[in-house]
């Protein structure tokens, strides 16, 4: 400050604590900015978590198999009728096709495992394709289907941690009674062996620490509880000792089990899973998961380590090996996930799509639009242009303001009690959903329309009335057209809200699992259906991890629709905006 002593006392007095006042000022300002930043940051976090969660669901790994559409299997009675074609054993055809890919698989359990590369529901899809084009019968047909959801996630790198090594030496595989003996001419396995040993040692230490803690806690207690604790501690100690004994005293190889990373040796169509690992790093023994021939001095090979232990993942080593083999053969490719849009809901995530929900949303919104927009606009017109100022009008106004704040779930209860139980309308139907959402949206439309009507200057009405127009003519010829853009914007915002609404629809049973999309026609209004937000709710509950990505993808579709709606509202507002 440039104040000098000859300046008035008030300025000196004020200057004294100016510093702290300005610090308070900037603190407050920073708090305000932080609040805005927090809101923006949360939005970014929300969107990015959904986009990153949902994007993987837009691509799908597809399995292409050449299926032999053998006449006897497809058309058991040989008459080519639809009935006969529907009785064909298409799942056998699919099974045959995978078995041709891996002819060495024979055991019952192995086969069942093999058939879990895809979901059995694909047989129906194959049937539909044959029904569509019966000339396929008897040919070798290239059939495409989605890979099982877990394997799809595996290929997208979302299921396990894994790494691969380029080895230095040459590989030899010898088949013996104890399994396949794997050897490398260099010390390719040494690092892995010491890594495994380290892991085991750490596990032993952890068990011991745990045991000590249990023992310590047991000291302060008595009775069976303490006994149990001591017993657990003893068990832990024994396990730890076992592990240490295996590691330190025995000279033999380290056994690999499901609690340790899986080590795969891959070479030219062969894959060996190591079951034990020599300590010196020269190799180990294992078993063939793919192929069965011995080799010697092979230089073209690689090491694949799946760090997530087999016990803690949903896919076995065997399925991973098959998937990798099919991918290497070009039988698996990633493509845009058309199932997400072409299918309705399904129990199998890889076949589940939003089509049913999308159709349900469209049907529901049609009802909502044709009910809430006219009634809303009419009500607003009545209140704004016609209603006498009396008690009844005031009652309607108060009523509308309060209706706007009634929780949406209460509208659901109304729908259940009145439309379904009293009127006997069908449950889960877009008709009832639309009716409930209309009542819910009505206040929004009314309030927006009234605002738009209020914005039309009184002079326009007076001008029209002055040339002898009736009130109805004034309203419909002059006021309504001028207020139309505002009404449209308000209606669109209300409808977008209705499109994202979930809770009231749960009340009227639109929450059921529905595997068929409703018809886009008059009958569709009374067929059971679900809508986008409810589909999101249903999927978010899905046990399979793949449903999580699909939930996020469905959210992205819904958000895209809503952004489209809102963009339309903004465009209309800009295009027709008029300032008085």
């Amino acid at each position: 400050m440039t104040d000098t002593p000859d300046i008035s006392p008030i300025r000196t007095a004020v200057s004294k604590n100016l510093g702290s006042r300005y610090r308070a000022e900037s603190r407050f300002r920073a708090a305000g900015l932080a609040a805005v930043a927090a809101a923006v940051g949360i939005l970014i976090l929300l969107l990015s978590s959904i986009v990153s969660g949902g994007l993987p669901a837009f691509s799908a790994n597809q399995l292409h198999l050449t299926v032999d559409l053998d006449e006897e299997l497809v058309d058991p009675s040989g008459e080519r009728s639809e009935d006969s074609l529907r009785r064909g054993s298409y799942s056998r055809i699919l099974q045959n096709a995978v078995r041709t890919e891996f002819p060495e698989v024979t055991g019952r359990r192995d086969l069942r495992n093999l058939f879990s590369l895809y979901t059995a529901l694909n047989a129906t899809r194959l049937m539909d394709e044959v029904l569509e084009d019966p000339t396929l019968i008897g040919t070798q047909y290239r059939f495409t289907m989605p890979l099982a959801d877990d394997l799809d996630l595996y290929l997208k790198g979302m299921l396990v941690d894994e790494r691969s090594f380029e080895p230095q030496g040459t590989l030899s595989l010898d088949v013996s009674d104890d399994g396949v003996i794997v050897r490398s001419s260099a010390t390719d396995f040494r690092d892995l062996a010491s890594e495994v040993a380290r892991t085991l040692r750490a596990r032993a230490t952890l068990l011991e620490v745990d045991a000590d803690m249990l023992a310590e806690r047991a000291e302060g207690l008595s009775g069976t509880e303490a006994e149990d604790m001591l017993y657990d501690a003893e068990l832990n100690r024994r396990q730890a000792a076992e592990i240490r004994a295996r590691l330190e005293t025995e000279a033999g190889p380290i056994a690999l089990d499901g609690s340790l990373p899986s080590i795969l040796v891959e070479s030219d169509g062969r894959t060996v899973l190591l079951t034990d690992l020599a300590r010196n790093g020269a190799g180990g023994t294992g078993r063939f998961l793919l192929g069965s021939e011995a080799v010697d001095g092979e230089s073209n090979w690689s090491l694949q380590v799946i760090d997530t232990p087999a016990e803690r993942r949903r896919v076995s080593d065997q399925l991973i090996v098959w998937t990798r083999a099919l991918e290497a053969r070009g039988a698996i490719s990633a493509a845009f996930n058309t199932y997400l849009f072409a299918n309705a809901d399904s129990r199998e995530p890889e076949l589940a799509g939003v089509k049913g929900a999308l159709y349900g949303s469209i049907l529901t919104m049609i009802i909502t639009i044709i009910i809430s927009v006219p009634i809303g606009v009419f009500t607003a017109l009545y209140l704004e242009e016609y209603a006498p100022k009396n008690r009844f009008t005031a009652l309607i106004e108060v009523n509308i303001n309060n209706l706007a704040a009634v929780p949406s779930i209460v509208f659901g209860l109304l729908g259940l009690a009145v439309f379904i139980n009293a009127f006997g309308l069908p449950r889960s139907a877009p008709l009832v959903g639309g009716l409930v959402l209309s009542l819910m949206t009505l206040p929004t439309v009314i309030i927006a329309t009234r605002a738009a009507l209020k914005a039309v200057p009184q002079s326009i009405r007076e001008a029209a009335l002055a040339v002898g127009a009736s009130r109805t003519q004034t309203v419909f010829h002059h006021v309504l057209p001028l207020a139309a853009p505002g009404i449209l914007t308000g209606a669109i915002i209300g409808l977008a809200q209705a499109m994202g609404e979930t809770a009231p629809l749960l009340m009227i049973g639109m929450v059921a699992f529905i595997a068929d999309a409703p018809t886009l026609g008059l009958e569709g209004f009374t067929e059971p259906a679900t809508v986008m937000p409810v589909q999101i709710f249903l999927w978010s509950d899905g046990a399979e991890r793949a449903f999580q990505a699909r939930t996020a993808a469905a959210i992205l579709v819904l958000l895209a629709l809503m952004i489209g709606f809102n963009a339309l509202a903004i465009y209309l507002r800009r295009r027709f905006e008029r300032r008085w």
Partner: protein
Amino acid sequence: MTDTPLNTPADLPIKVTARKVTVSYSGKQALHDVSIDIPDRSVTAFIGPSGCGKSTFLRCLNRMNDTIDGAVVGGSLTIDGQEINDKTIDPVVLRASVGMVFQKPNPFPKSIYDNVAYGPRIHGLALTRPELDEIVENALRKAGLWDEVSDRLTHPGTGLSGGQQQRLVIARAIAVNPEVILMDEPCSALDPIATARIEELIDELRENYCIIIVTHSMQQAARVSQHTAFFHMGHLVEYGSTEDIFTNPRDTRTQDYITGRFG
């Protein structure tokens, strides 16, 4: 316009000096090269038709134009020889020493006491409650309101009559003991009786403060001010002792205005 102010009153010490002050709002010039010397311990009135720039100039004197987006003030303004139209001068300090009273009474929605104590509190002028009580009482006495409100200091300030509210606002302004008091048409929202009361008050306050009042009422300017400046279309047209301006205007525009031909 010349560089030297018009007809500077010589008998009193100069408090406020303006040289070539210009103001523009978002590029539109509202005030052109105003130069003026305003004496201390007297009342100076700014008159002129609506939109002539008198209020704009008034708002320069406590940098209230800073609060308007897009307002640019040029030229030089000093109070007691110290430049105020300068980014290094803190408007908070400046405004503490330049009080302002607005067209419509704007008491805060607080008690009468809190209204008057507002300035001393934010500036930390009183350390104890008795000190603050004294400041409030003094300010209310100076504003001639004490006798009317001393028994209801905790009542809301918005509950007073219009004239009382305006005097409350004046008390609020003088509670921090400013050097200059700006009044922007302080009586335009009041009835004649309340107006007379305020005018009396302005006359009393003249002994201690430099008062600058914007008014659209020429009678009021004649009644309360010692000096008058006439503004027209953003220009300072004429400035001199009130008597001279009203009895012997030099500019035809001034003459036309005071004889009521326009405005």
